[in-house]
């Protein structure tokens, strides 16, 4: 059926675009703010971490 093929092709394109849209963002270089945040979180709750009292 012509129309059905047509729809299938469109659905294939949709599937492809979904994956592409997602992976494009997912594979982008992660902004530093997130790495910094994780680092901060780690420092906050690591009691063994012998940090100088506060900043200043």
């Amino acid at each position, binding site marked *: 059926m012509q129309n059905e093929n047509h729809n299938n092709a469109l659905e294939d*394109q*949709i599937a492809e675009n979904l994956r592409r849209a*997602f992976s494009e963002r997912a594979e982008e270089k992660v902004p530093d703010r*997130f790495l910094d945040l994780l680092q901060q979180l780690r420092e906050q709750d690591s009691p063994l971490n012998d940090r100088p009292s506060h900043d200043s």
Partner: protein
Amino acid sequence: MTGLLMTAEKPVVDPRDEIVTHLGPMRAFALSLTRNGAEADDLVQESLVKAWKNIESFQVGTNMQAWLFTILRNTFYSLRRKRSREVADPDGIAAGQLSVKPAHDGRLQLSEFLEVFAQLPVEQREALALVGASGFSYEEAASMCGVAVGTIKSRANRGRARLVEMLHAGEDGYGDMTDRVTSAIVNAGAQGRLTA
């Protein structure tokens, strides 16, 4: 509970060390929910803090990405509820008119696709992002969203049908794109292929 304490056997790996490897997919999922890059990254940021502080609720050996995505979507919806008390819900209003022409080569451009995708209701975007884009099973997606498997299936199917409809409305002819699409799918390793 028998008190067999695994005393000295502190796990060598802190599960929190794994979080960093999921940042990319978290950003992508956040974007499909918010449709806005800056908002998406704020959402990721907030979710990371929650994940970090609630790491005990992560069961080692289970899928961390699913766990993180669940936190992220819960955060999204609670922010959204908070916000909708202030302004009218922007979703659903726009769900409509726009249709998109395929590029000259007959191939749907990513940017155009995203424009149309952004018009879907959030539940459909979410279902498609989880199942269609990230490769979660319907079962996984259902448990992440706290709904029945059938609900996820129908959301995803309605989303696809709506996309087809909107893309149809803007087309001149998709006649000869099939081969290109087929090879693209094959190249992509047809893992999460649609069953429509």
